């Protein structure tokens, strides 16, 4: 018995190109549904794809907020708020949500974008070389409220305000490890009694023309970007019965974080070793080994080096396993979701654990559903710099 046993993961809230719950994503993957959409803001043959995995920008009515909230937020924050709303819909139907013991843990990405509207860039080009004209252009054209909307913490502010969360909080940035950092610290905050419940979530970067060169310069492997948000609730086990309605949203009230590991390896063999080390640590904490994992959900790593390292590390870890677990994630239906990706995997894994099912690769790139042989799943996050987090999720029985 560890103090992690006292915490349950519940109330999945998932917003991706495949839909608004884990079941929709599951079905989209199995059906091989095309969830991409055309993306024409970036012209020319590069980046080699004309579709990405977009989601609709939630409006005020969808978010359940006054329309003025939209002025102090950008799409990234709105996706996060919608993810939180989807997550808390179940708990809110069963009892009060929020209060001083409800915390918030978030993984937040950054897009190094232009603060000026694209339409103002022509004026900027004309003013280049004349700093006073540039400053005057900025004074006219920088969107109102951007001093608030572009803060990387705005998502936290709007979620707190919408749901009355006033407990312990933290927000991490900017890559996929941030999503699992939020999960680990959120669960620990409940395990240690700092919070009674913690809303844990992460959001993808919004798909923006300047996201492509950002990825390119960081070693992009051509993976298709996607948008979305993934949220859940970490709650004390004794409180979970009041949250049972969450299962109607495709999750389970009886899953838990059984183990976690972190490591760091900047590049090459060090990165491979770090990923393997983080997995071994998580397995050890979960009191299991490679044979005790039924499903691996690897990170949607978008750098070539990271992708190779993750593959090599998983080969090492599961080399001696009696039966190699299925290794598959959501990327075909969601694209790469940044910090939200590992949390989307957590939600998909919880859905599988609830039904005793998993996804596996089939011939021709298809995805099939099959029985989950062991009630544990491994989820990985491999940050672009070599930061690694691994978590083991376990069906926990009531």
């Amino acid at each position: 018995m560890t103090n992690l046993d006292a915490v349950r993961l519940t109330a999945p809230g998932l917003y991706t190109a495949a839909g608004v719950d884990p079941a929709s994503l599951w079905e989209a993957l199995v059906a091989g549904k095309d969830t991409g959409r055309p993306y024409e803001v970036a012209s020319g043959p590069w980046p080699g794809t004309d579709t990405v995995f977009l989601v609709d920008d939630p409006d005020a009515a969808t978010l359940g907020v006054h329309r003025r909230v939209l002025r102090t937020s950008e799409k990234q924050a709105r996706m996060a708020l919608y993810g939180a709303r989807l997550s808390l819909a179940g708990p809110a139907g069963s009892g009060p949500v929020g209060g001083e013991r409800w915390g918030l843990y978030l993984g937040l990405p950054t897009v190094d974008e232009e603060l000026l509207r694209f339409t103002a860039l022509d004026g900027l080009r004309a003013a280049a070389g004349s700093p006073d004209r540039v400053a005057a252009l900025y004074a006219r054209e920088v969107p109102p409220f951007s001093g608030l909307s572009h803060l990387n913490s705005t998502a936290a502010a709007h979620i707190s305000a919408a749901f009355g969360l006033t407990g312990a909080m933290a927000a991490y940035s900017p890559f996929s490890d941030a999503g699992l950092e939020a999960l680990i610290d959120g669960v620990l905050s409940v395990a240690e009694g700092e919070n009674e419940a913690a809303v844990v979530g992460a959001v993808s970067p919004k798909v923006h023309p300047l996201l492509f060169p950002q990825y390119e310069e960081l070693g992009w492997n051509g993976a298709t970007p996607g948008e979305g948000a993934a949220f859940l609730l970490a709650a004390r086990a004794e409180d979970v019965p009041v949250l049972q309605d969450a299962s109607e949203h495709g999750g389970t009230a009886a899953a838990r974080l059984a183990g976690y590991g972190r490591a760091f390896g900047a590049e090459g063999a060090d990165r491979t070793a770090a990923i393997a080390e983080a997995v071994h640590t998580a397995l050890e904490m979960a009191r299991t080994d490679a044979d005790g994992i039924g499903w691996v959900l690897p990170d949607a790593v978008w750098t070539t080096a990271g992708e190779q390292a993750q593959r090599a590390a998983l080969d090492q870890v599961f080399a001696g396993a009696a039966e190699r677990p299925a290794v598959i994630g959501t990327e075909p239906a969601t694209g790469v979701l940044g910090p939200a990706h590992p949390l989307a995997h957590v939600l998909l894994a919880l859905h599988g654990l609830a039904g005793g099912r998993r996804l596996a690769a089939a011939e021709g790139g298809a995805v099939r559903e099959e029985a989950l042989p062991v009630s544990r799943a491994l989820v990985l996050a491999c940050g672009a710099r070599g930061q690694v987090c691994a978590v083991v999720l376990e069906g926990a029985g009531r």
Partner: protein
Amino acid sequence: MNPHIPTGDGQEVVVTGIGLVAGRLTDPESLFDHLAQGHTLITEHPLHQEWGVPCAVSAHIDPGVRAALEDAVPEEAGSLGPAGTLAWHAAAQAWERSGLPRRLDTERGGVFLACNRMVMEPAELAGLAGHVDFAAGALDLDSYLDAGGPDAERYERIQPDTATVRLADYFGAAGVLETHADACAAGGMAIGSAYRYIRSGVLDVALAGGAESLTTLTSVTAFYGVGALAPADGQDAGRISRPFDKDRSGFVIGDGAAFLVLESRAHAEARGARILARVAGYAGVTEAVKMTSSSRDGSDYAECMRAALTDAGLTPGDIDHVNAHGTSTEANDTCEAAALHLVFGERTAGIPVTGNKSAMGHSLANSGAAEAVLSVLSLQRQSVLPTLNFAEPDEVTRGLDIVTEQRSTPVTAVLSNSFGFGGQNCSLILAQAG
């Protein structure tokens, strides 16, 4: 790494090293002395002044100092951006002063950095503009990249986690890596998170702090646009930031970096380290009021301060100095002053309060870390720093003991506050080493 499941055993957390860069000053003691003498770091920003920017004052890093710091970054650290360079200097200074070996090389060290995002500045955007088809509203990425695109290392340098991993790699402290994005409270929250990891027994050592370099045209314009910055209006630059004064009108933006080396007392004592102070308590909470203001009655900020006191096992009567968030905005100082009245009641008038942002400006994610470093020095020197430009309180700030000149006074426990836009609140309690 091989983390422990936190046990709540309650390791005592101590400070064994501090480092800082602000303005033209590159160590904590120089800054403390500078501020103690009533001097400011806030000056006219020469470029912004020339360009006619409405708020052309800031506590920016002296260009000569920045160049020297860039030159001093070792090759192994790789290329660092503006904030990363400052972070490196402050962190390396704190590490060296702690007496820890050059590399820790255990799984029980970590790095916790607070840093906000950056956005593209005019020169970079002008290069991009030539590749936008304004009629179609499309960016020709191919031609942009063929023309050289952004600086090849730009994205790597400016990502907020770059300095986190470089520091961890260089000092061999990669057990837990966190890059905090908690707005203006992030510096305090990074320290608080490190404190919790050491207290629970997961880590022995942590390098925790913040860095910010946002005295740029884009950031100044954006913050001015939401009315957060004080208008210069031809005033003497050093007199614009005036926390808790009735004529306060907004904050002055600043740059800087500050780091602390935190250790478990057992680890520090085992290696004979000099213990500078203790991190006695911490609270980092969210709230639910609005984007630009907490509850005007101070109740939310008060809740955060009380939570930190509870965490420390202290009462309000144990606090003898407050290092306030004190941004000089009407809303923040009103909420914080009201909260101090709520928490300290009749004792309020007897607790010296300092607002360092009166002299240092507001360095956003870094501010909580810089103020924690200065609080450590207040504990060591038994001296509290002045709040510049405080002349007269308003109805709410009345009754606070706003320190206006350096004051020698017993300092055993400091409450250091950081409150971010949107209600991301943090209170740290730093105490004498014992």
